[in-house]
């Protein structure tokens, strides 16, 4: 018999990991198409405040979640236009997106500080959710948790089994070839960037609607950057990225619980763990440079201009 606190711990790991799953899976698609969007943090935090604001105003969870996705995609649109059509540097534009998103979200969120949202309802299935251990672990989550797992399945399927996936990987690996056989490189890339933005927005929405259902300035606290690292960690494969997200969610929770159990390590040192773990994991991934280069899309971060 598994004790209740283990079930509870696993549930909190799911909560900590879900925002990372959304953001990282979105970025997998973006990077597969050859675009490097460093603005995940900004899109996430805009998703968080938009979802929270709409949630508080309408008390409608669906609208709130949609608002989060739309806000993320709207910010991604700025990034897309700048990098794809105005050929701006991907790194600098992504940074600007993060600064802008953090500022704008704080501005919008100014009047939402201290307000509360009831949180997302659990999708309880009568009978099934009551089974001990398995019930709460498999059936007691909110809609976004299931959506995050569904997105991993769908993205894997689209990338590997469909013509769309072939196109996305094509423009990411060789945009000149994709262009010369008649595909609109920038349109495909824009679609991927918007998808990535919406996913980051959903990750942010999960933070402010379910994870800690209130608005705190800068509440993403670097998760967007960790999501970026997770894409490298998962070597641009959805399932590996998903497991990476849960690994990091796990580290975050272990860190919290260690404090609860009175482990005599200062809280600040424990809070460093996820960031240090990211660095260590990155070192292990990139150490073998030939492998890292094989899995990274060949045109990642390069602008495309068809002149003529």
């Amino acid at each position: 018999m598994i004790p209740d606190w283990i079930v509870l711990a696993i549930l909190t790991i799911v909560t900590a990991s879900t925002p990372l799953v959304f953001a990282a899976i979105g970025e997998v698609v973006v990077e597969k198409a050859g675009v490097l969007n460093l603005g995940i943090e900004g899109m996430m935090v805009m998703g968080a405040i938009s979802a929270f604001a709409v949630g508080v105003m309408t008390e409608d969870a669906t609208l709130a979640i949609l608002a989060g996705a739309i806000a993320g995609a709207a910010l991604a649109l700025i990034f897309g236009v700048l990098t794809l059509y105005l050929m701006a540097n991907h790194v600098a534009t992504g940074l600007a997106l993060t600064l802008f998103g953090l500022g704008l979200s704080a501005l919008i969120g100014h009047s939402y500080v201290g307000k509360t949202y009831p949180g997302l309802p659990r999708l309880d299935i009568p009978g099934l959710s009551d089974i001990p251990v398995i019930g709460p672990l498999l059936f007691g989550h909110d809609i976004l948790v299931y959506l995050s797992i569904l997105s991993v399945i769908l993205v894997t399927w689209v990338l590997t089994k469909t013509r769309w996936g072939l196109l996305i990987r094509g423009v990411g690996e060789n945009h000149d070839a994709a262009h010369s056989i008649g595909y609109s490189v920038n349109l495909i890339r824009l679609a991927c960037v918007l998808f990535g933005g919406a996913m980051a927005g959903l990750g942010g929405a999960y933070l402010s609607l379910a994870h800690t259902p209130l608005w705190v300035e800068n509440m993403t606290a670097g998760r967007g950057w960790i999501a970026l690292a997770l894409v490298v960690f998962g070597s641009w494969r959805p399932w590996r990225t998903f497991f990476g997200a849960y690994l990091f969610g796990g580290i975050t929770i272990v860190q919290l619980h260690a404090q609860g159990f009175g482990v005599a390590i200062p809280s600040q040192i424990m809070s460093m763990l996820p960031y240090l773990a990211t660095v260590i994991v990155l070192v292990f991934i990139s150490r073998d440079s030939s492998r890292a280069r094989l899995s990274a899309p060949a045109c990642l971060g390069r602008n495309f201009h068809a002149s003529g």
Partner: protein
Amino acid sequence: MGRLMSIRLEQRGEMSRAMIYGSPLIAVVLTLIAGAGLFAILGVDPLDALVTYFITPIATLDGVAELFVKATPLVLIGIGLAFGFQANVWNIGAEGQLTIGALAGGGLALLFYEVDTVFLLPAMVIAGILGGMAWAAIPAFLRTRYNTNEILTSLMLVYVALLILSYLIHGSWKSPESLNFPESRLFHDAALMPILVEDTRLHIGWLFALAAAATGWILIARHIVGFQIKVIGMAPRAAGFAGYKEKKIIWLTLMMSGGAAGLAGMIEVSGPIGQIVPVISPGYGFTAIIVAFLGRLHPVGVTLAGILMALTFLGGETAQVDMNLPNAVTGVFQGMLLFFLLATDVLVKFRIRMSSPKPAPAVQEEAAE
């Protein structure tokens, strides 16, 4: 996009010199217009808000002095970062290097709290620089040894540095007289930056910033190292053929930017703050990235851009006090400015043509700089 709007981008044969200097100005004007729009949406009189934001703060001598106080860390860090960005070395963890520099320099001030000597301040300057360098050495080592992306490592280390600061200031560095507030003892006079203009807060740190700009200009425009940095950034393969060592340049640029950020952090605690507090910088390390770009990665430009960005910080504070606007408006302004700059930058390399597209497009690719 070309076909839809029958506006096309046509590559210029050479970069437009007019646009290299013109696009930052266009970006500033566009930011002001967009800012006015933003204020209107917030229900604030745009003209009133812009005056509060950009004129009121520098209408007095105190205000002008304050402008340079705030510009000091931005210019210092921006100059350092510009080297790396030219060589495609993306140190975006300056905020962390600033924090460690502040801890190294400020720690020395606390360690020799009882000692009154003229050597204390120079020692703190050196400690600050070394602290920032040490923190930047981690991404430099990981990039050169294990090929690890310095963007992510330097950024993760920002969070670690801020947590170290929090740990120390809530722990052993807390002042015994602070009534349990998380702040250190006030530094003694020997550990404080001498004031440059009497009755203001302007201190000699600004001279360090100017010296850094001058050194930066000599290095980038007149020295072989500057040339190597530019070649590695623009044409890595050519740099390889010429025998320039990429690893050496990665180390060099990260040490310069880390050292500059560390010095900036030390100057903050020893200048305007005068002690170690939980929040040392309002994001100077991140804003300096915009400063570097806005200044065209050129020392003179970076200095001017640093002063302009300092104004957005000052304006944010004034608007908060005078008009009860949230301080976050500053971040929005800074983000917009960088957006517009990046957008207008397209005019440097391309010209806009309004016509119907020609058939049979030739394929061309532009590597990201």
